[in-house]
């Protein structure tokens, strides 16, 4: 025991000594100098003159420095000492060849950073389960059409009840809809919320951290005015007060009582608002909501343990079929589509993210290949230097250790760079991810992944650097110093294969980027059907009170419109219930009054004010626009869009015909016009059949979206809008005010995001591949400069020498391009979901990528070749 303790103390002393080495060193030297001084003094006292005494004393001592060095072993840890020396030496050696060091470190950093980031995103977004309890059991239930079985349509209340009542597969179910209240009394702020019915919180498996969720009585009676709030709102508005329960929140003028607080990080699983939800309330059913044809709810269910999605789908389809038979008008063509929530949220992105992961692996491979060849080449070049060192007596082991240290330093530097890149890339992604990249907030770099990737790259560096090192250290120096051109040729061939593969991978990435670019161009060229350049949109939300004070909502809108029209540049102000990307999934079954048993057509209903079509620039194909005469007192009228007219009337002119707007509609309207299709869901989505109602004759909700047509830039009008709103309605808030072009940009956000991602990878791959080609050719040139010089001396022209090298380089490039084209055709399918009007094998995109690579590749080949051809023959021959 004592021995152990002594040894431990001794080891600690050594470590401590190493840490405070400088101080110990100085102390030792001082002590020794004292000794020498004392000895010198003693000798002086025996009569020797001072300089002689000192000389003798120093001689007798044996020299302070050597003894200090020897003594160092006793208080410092030797291996660490040597390691420090090795590191310093290796660092100096690396700094001597800056281009090599930078190339290797950069390649490593990029490879590690890119791969770690891509894998982190995949892991967090796709692979990890959702943050709900046993999220694998949560499914969405959508209303679909028999012709479109994967359609995700909203559901009606009676359908929902029929699906879940007594269903043995379902443990708990809930239906809900979006709620956009204004928070606060004086300066209200728009927030996002959810109106729920059923067992919302049980389906998600969430327990409130404070208070409770809704009781059955509160669910049945929404006038109870209770809300559950999110953790974030609780912190923001209620100061995280532990006694927040029972406090009041004013939402759109109505006072609600807070009865519960949810845990942090709970996002509502549908995410159709850009803001996360902050409040939940029992659902408030508007009139007409109980109709079977009114599809306005989203449904989630938790399956019982042991029930598979297929089983649930089968049973529900059975129920839906029964409903189709019982209610042919509303449910005739309709069924139910069961989609696991994980797939719902992540699904559309899964393939793309996996493709991005593939791209980053390509980049990593290219980076590693480059690094391997660079390191290998360098060590081969240093073979001569190593041989020389061996010849003058350096130990082989020490040399190998030195070379390993160099590789480790490179690896460490690359690793640090890679971590930095991963951290900043994930940070950027969190901030700038497209709205539909699910769970973006969870993207935090994974230490595990970083470690794995780091190890992989480190292994590459060491392996490729080690072999020539060991060979160099062990082989007889004499052999090494001879010209070993055979070895070089074999290595050169391997290198050119590697470079070909690099080019192939770069081609794939470039081609994909090209496809996305072409898609963007196509999409932007697609007309939306309305005049987006001159339109601005916004919503006004206010509690009921202020509207009542202004007379009524309609009176307010009249005054507001009149005021706004007085602003310079404003041509027209209209309202609509379905804006660009602002509409929900609410559809109604419309049909002709004469055929009660035909399945009706799901149409989107848009309530618009007079002059809507003139203001938005949507062309009227037949008939007329709505006028002020089409009010609540006038005859009921409607306008159809082109798709609806085609579906209903198949080529006949529908003007003058009659239409029922929804199931249970008693009064048919007369169709007075047909409008051209406007692509409210974006240029890439199919156009929906649409039915327009005039403002005063709305059958569903009111129109909340304003559209303002301006002569100048719509963005310039926004401050005026806020001002006029505040003047007329002090308690109101303007929300979502922006030019329509901004919203239109959101349609292509995914293409742009992935375009940037693939573009980045493609650029990196291109740069790395170019470095690879350049390195390969330069290396070959150096090895064969004797041959070149001799040929030139024998009369070959510079041109012919050039052509030789060019030919070899082009063969490598050509091989790479060939393989690359095949790979592209196979791989580009993965981005098909992003493409619009562009085939995954679009010849223009692929051809363009080939051309770019060819040009860059040939340039990278030419530069060293030209340099070789120009090198003065005499110098080369003389130096050999």
């Amino acid at each position, binding site marked *: 025991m004592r021995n152990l303790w002594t040894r431990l103390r001794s080891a600690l002393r050594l470590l401590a000594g190493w840490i405070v080495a400088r101080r110990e060193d100085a102390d030792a030297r001082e002590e020794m100098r004292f000794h020498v001084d004392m*000895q010198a003094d003693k000798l002086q006292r025996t009569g020797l003159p001072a300089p002689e005494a000192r000389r003798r004393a120093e001689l007798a001592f044996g020299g302070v420095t050597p003894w200090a060095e020897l003594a160092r072993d006793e208080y410092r840890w030797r291996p660490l000492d040597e390691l420090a020396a090795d590191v310093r030496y290796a660092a100096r050696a690396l700094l001597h060849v800056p281009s090599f060091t930078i190339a290797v470190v950069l390649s490593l950093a990029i490879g590690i950073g890119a791969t770690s980031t891509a894998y982190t995103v995949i892991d967090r977004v796709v692979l990890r389960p959702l943050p709900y309890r046993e999220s694998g059991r949560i499914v969405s239930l959508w209303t679909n059409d028999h012709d479109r079985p994967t359609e995700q349509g909203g559901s009606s209340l009676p359908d929902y009840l029929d699906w879940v009542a007594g269903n043995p597969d379902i443990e708990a179910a809930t239906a809900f809809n979006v709620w956009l209240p204004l928070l606060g009394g004086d300066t209200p702020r728009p927030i996002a919320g959810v109106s729920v019915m059923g067992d919302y919180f049980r389906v998600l498996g969430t327990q409130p951290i404070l208070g409770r969720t809704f009781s059955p009585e509160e669910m049945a009676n929404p006038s109870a005015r209770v809300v559950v709030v999110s953790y974030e709102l609780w912190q923001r508005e209620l100061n995280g007060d532990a006694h927040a329960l029972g406090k009041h929140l004013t939402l759109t003028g109505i006072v609600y009582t807070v009865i519960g607080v949810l845990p942090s990080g709970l996002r509502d699983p549908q995410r159709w608002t850009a803001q996360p939800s902050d409040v939940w309330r029992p659902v408030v059913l508007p009139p007409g909501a109980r109709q079977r044809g009114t599809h306005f709810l989203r449904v989630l269910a938790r399956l019982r343990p042991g029930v598979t999605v297929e089983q649930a789908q089968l049973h529900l389809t059975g129920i839906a079929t029964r409903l189709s038979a019982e209610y042919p008008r509303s449910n005739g063509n309709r069924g139910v589509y069961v989609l696991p929530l994980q797939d719902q949220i992540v699904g559309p992105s899964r393939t793309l993210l996996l493709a991005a992961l593939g791209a980053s692996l390509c980049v990593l491979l290219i980076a590693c290949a480059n690094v391997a060849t660079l390191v290998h080449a360098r060590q081969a070049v240093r073979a001569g230097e190593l041989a020389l060192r061996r010849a003058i007596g350096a130990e082989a082991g020490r040399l190998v250790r030195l070379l390993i240290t160099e590789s480790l330093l490179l690896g460490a530097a690359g690793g640090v760079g890679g971590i930095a890149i991963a951290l900043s890339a994930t940070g950027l992604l969190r901030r700038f991810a497209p709205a539909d990249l699910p769970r973006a907030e969870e993207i935090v770099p994974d230490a595990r992944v970083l470690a794995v990737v780091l190890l992989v790259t480190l292994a590459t560096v060491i392996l490729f650097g080690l072999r020539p090192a060991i060979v160099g250290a062990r082989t007889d120096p004499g052999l090494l110093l001879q010209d070993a051109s055979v070895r070089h040729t074999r290595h050169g061939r391997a290198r050119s294969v590697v470079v070909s593969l690099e080019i192939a991978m770069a081609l794939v990435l470039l081609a994909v980027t090209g496809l996305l670019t072409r898609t963007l161009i196509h999409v932007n060229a697609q007309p939306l059907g309305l005049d987006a350049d001159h339109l601005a949109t916004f919503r006004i939300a206010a509690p009921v009170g202020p509207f009542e004070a202004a007379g009524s909502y309609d009176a307010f809108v009249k005054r507001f419109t009149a005021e706004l029209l007085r602003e310079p540049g404003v041509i027209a102000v209209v309202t609509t219930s379905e804006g660009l990307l602002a509409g929900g999934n609410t559809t109604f079954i419309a049909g002709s009054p004469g055929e009660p048993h035909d399945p009706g057509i799901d149409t989107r209903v848009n309530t618009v004010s007079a002059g809507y079509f003139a203001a938005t620039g949507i062309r009227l194909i037949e008939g007329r626009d709505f006028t002020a005469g089409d009010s609540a007192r006038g005859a009921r009228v409607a306008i159809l869009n082109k798709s609806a007219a085609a579906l209903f009337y198949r080529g006949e002119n529908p003007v003058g015909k009659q239409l029922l707007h929804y199931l249970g509609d008693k009064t048919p309207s007369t169709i007075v016009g047909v409008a051209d299709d406007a692509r409210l869901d974006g240029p890439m989505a199919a156009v929906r059949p649409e039915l327009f109602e005039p403002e005063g004759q709305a059958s569903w909700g009111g129109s909340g979206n304003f559209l303002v047509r301006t002569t100048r830039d719509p963005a310039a009008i926004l401050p005026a809008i806020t001002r006029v709103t505040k003047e007329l309605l002090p308690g109101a808030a303007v929300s979502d005010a922006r030019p329509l072009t901004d919203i239109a940009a959101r349609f292509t956000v995914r293409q742009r995001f992935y375009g940037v991602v693939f573009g980045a990878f493609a650029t990196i791959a291109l740069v790395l591949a170019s470095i690879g080609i350049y390195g390969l050719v330069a290396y070959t040139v150096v090895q064969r400069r004797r041959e070149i010089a001799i040929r030139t001396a024998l009369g070959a022209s510079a041109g012919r020498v050039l052509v030789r090298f060019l030919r070899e380089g082009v063969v490598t490039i050509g091989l790479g391009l060939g393989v690359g084209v095949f790979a592209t055709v196979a791989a580009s399918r993965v981005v098909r979901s992003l493409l619009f009007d562009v085939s995954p094998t679009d010849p223009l995109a692929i051809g363009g990528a080939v051309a770019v690579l060819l040009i860059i590749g040939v340039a990278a080949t030419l530069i060293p070749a030209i340099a070789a051809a120009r090198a003065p023959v005499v110098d080369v021959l003389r130096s050999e």
Partner: protein
Amino acid sequence: MAEQKAGEPRGEMLYGALDMLILKALQLEPMHGWGISERIGQWSEEVLEVNQGSLYPALYRLKRAGWITSTWQVTENNRRARYYALTADGRKQLAAELRSWQRLSRAIDIVMTMKPA
């Protein structure tokens, strides 16, 4: 310092017993490195000549083992020097080394003075 005379025992033989001699030198009172070397020289009547530099690695080794400690102090001449002192463990070690030295030297003695039969 005595000159090396031919036939006299050489300083290098000292090395194995250096540790023991240092501990013995410090038995009386703490001393700095030069003082230790002087003391050993005096006591042995200049027979044992410690190669002066080699003292220090030995001192540090003994310190690492925990048998001596060191402090910086000021000498009578107002110079800074590092003084070494025996620890309790050091004293025990000294006794142990003395015992094994005595055993060793007696054994060698017996062998060397043995008369051929």
